[in-house]
């Protein structure tokens, strides 16, 4: 295993055809390493989410390659990409996307169940991850009974339950107040990051910049600057 978690080469993504064609991401190459937290920042519409989607197996680039441990993920068949997402990637969506009809612990167990783990075993493991994010006591509640920050932590528990080596956060603090947001990212840096894991965070929120190892700036679909974090 190399220390490169992500190796993106010459990625291009455009929407529309002919006159209407607009580039969301243009000629982007970058690397992310295990053990680091990489931030992607930039104005709205600069292509951050599009780039994240391409490296996490959600959106196929029009050209270019995404190498994860020397495997070109976009050369995999559809089921292979689904398995790649299931086994290697943990997503924390901006609006969490938790199931309101399932209990908190069942929500966390979802990736394990998708991995065909036995139901009761999955719940047991999920409970351990809820413990990591400090919500073991809330396991049997539906997520709507939890606060925004707690729901975000449930989403994190779900993202790490399948033990992915790449964690993807898109605007994780956007719907949290400043203090809660800071606490979440601080927690992620201290308890979730490890030297076998890479975390990529897209954010506008300058209050959390201090937790970055590197900050990559995007503008108009291109990377304009890479700086080491505060």
């Amino acid at each position, binding site marked *: 295993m190399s220390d490169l978690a992500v190796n993106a080469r010459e990625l291009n993504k455009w929407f529309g055809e002919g006159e209407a064609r607009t580039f969301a991401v243009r000629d982007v190459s970058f690397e992310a390493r295990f053990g680091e937290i990489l931030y992607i920042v930039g104005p709205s519409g600069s292509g951050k989410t599009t780039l*994240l989607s391409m490296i996490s197996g959600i959106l196929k680039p029009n050209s270019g390659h995404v190498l994860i441990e020397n495997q070109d993920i976009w050369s995999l068949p559809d089921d292979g990409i689904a398995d790649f997402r299931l086994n290697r990637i943990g997503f924390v*969506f901006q609006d969490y*996307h938790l199931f309101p009809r399932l209990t908190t612990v069942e929500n966390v167990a979802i990736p394990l*169940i998708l991995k065909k783990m036995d*139901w009761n075993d*999955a719940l047991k493991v999920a409970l351990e991850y809820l413990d990591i994010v400090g919500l073991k006591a809330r396991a049997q509640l539906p997520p709507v009974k939890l606060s925004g920050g707690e729901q975000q932590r449930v989403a994190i528990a779900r993202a790490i339950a399948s033990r992915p080596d790449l964690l993807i956060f898109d605007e994780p603090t956007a719907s949290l107040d400043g203090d809660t947001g800071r606490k979440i990212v601080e927690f992620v840096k201290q308890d979730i990051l490890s030297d076998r894991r890479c975390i990529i965070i897209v954010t506008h929120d300058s209050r959390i910049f201090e937790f970055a190892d590197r900050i990559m700036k995007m503008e108009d679909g291109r990377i304009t600057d890479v700086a080491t974090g505060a």
Partner: protein
Amino acid sequence: MTGILKVAFKLLVNDRGKFFALLIGITFAVFLMVMMTSMFSGILTRASATVLNIGAKVWVMDPAVNNVASSIPMPDYVLNAVRSIKGVKYAVPLYSGGALVKLRSGTYQFVTVMGLDDATLFGRPALVEGKIEDIFAENAFIVVQDAEFGKLETPRVGTEFEINDHLGRVVGLARVNTSGLFGVPTLYTTFSRATTYIPSTRFTAAYVLIEPKGNGDLSYIKSEVQKLGYEALTQEEFIQKISSFYKYKTGLGINVLLMTIISFIVGLSISGQTFYTFILENLEKFGALKAIGAKGRELVFMILFQATFTALTAYGLGVGLATTLIVTARMRLPDYAAQITYANLGLAFVMVLIIAGVSSYIGIRKVIHIEPFDIFRG
């Protein structure tokens, strides 16, 4: 796979409001479909009661007869002509007609009188009381102990009554397999007594009943009877003819068909609509599942499972409800003509499967086309 189905189950059932709306919609549709078709089956069987109870293999009748109660008498030569057809083992006349009975209380009651061939008593019912030979005694009648029995003030052997100004005496009580549709009690007597006691046209035999020598003789017998200007039908064909009459010539069948289709459409639209809203509300969650790594076919299985589970549960509830209602109604009204047949259950089942199929198709189309990217972008 079972884990993912458990998730599907919880998503469905924990959404109480929608789940019950779905159940109620489909249950009600199944209930209506089963009730309508069962009532219709009941009525059809009742309408052919006489044919079933007499049990002759072949019936000869005027071609214009389309239901067993409105028979058209045939001249006597028909009987003799039929008897001389090759392949006929024996043939007997059957009288069927209506008469007015004056009961001991002084009230009048309309009855159906079946006159059995004096020589053979072909088509005689099973007796629960009395001896069949007593039918030859003076003024003798046998009363059928069916749902209409009470209308004759529950007579016993020896009870006397007036029938068209003649004296009648009950010599036996009979049991038949199928009650009639028309709510009229039935009396059996001999052909000769029936024709003398009951004023009628010059012709007297309503039907000629044939016992063929073998099944191979049927088509020849039929064509010979046709040459006489009459029609010979096997028992099944006659029942079929009566059923068609009620189905197509009375408006009954069309109404039942319409009601069944309406219940189906109501069920389909309620459940289709509700299921669609259910899917729409969960669409983002399905998208998130896809992003996390669920495969397309796993989502399809989830939806199929949800639709099938709901449909089958509702089917059980609907059939149960219909059965309970019919059984209860039978206990209160012995006359209640409704029977649940396998065909009815099968029909409702097919319709429920269609409802489940259409509902899941709508859901699956939606879910298959969600792009995790759109969910991701928020």
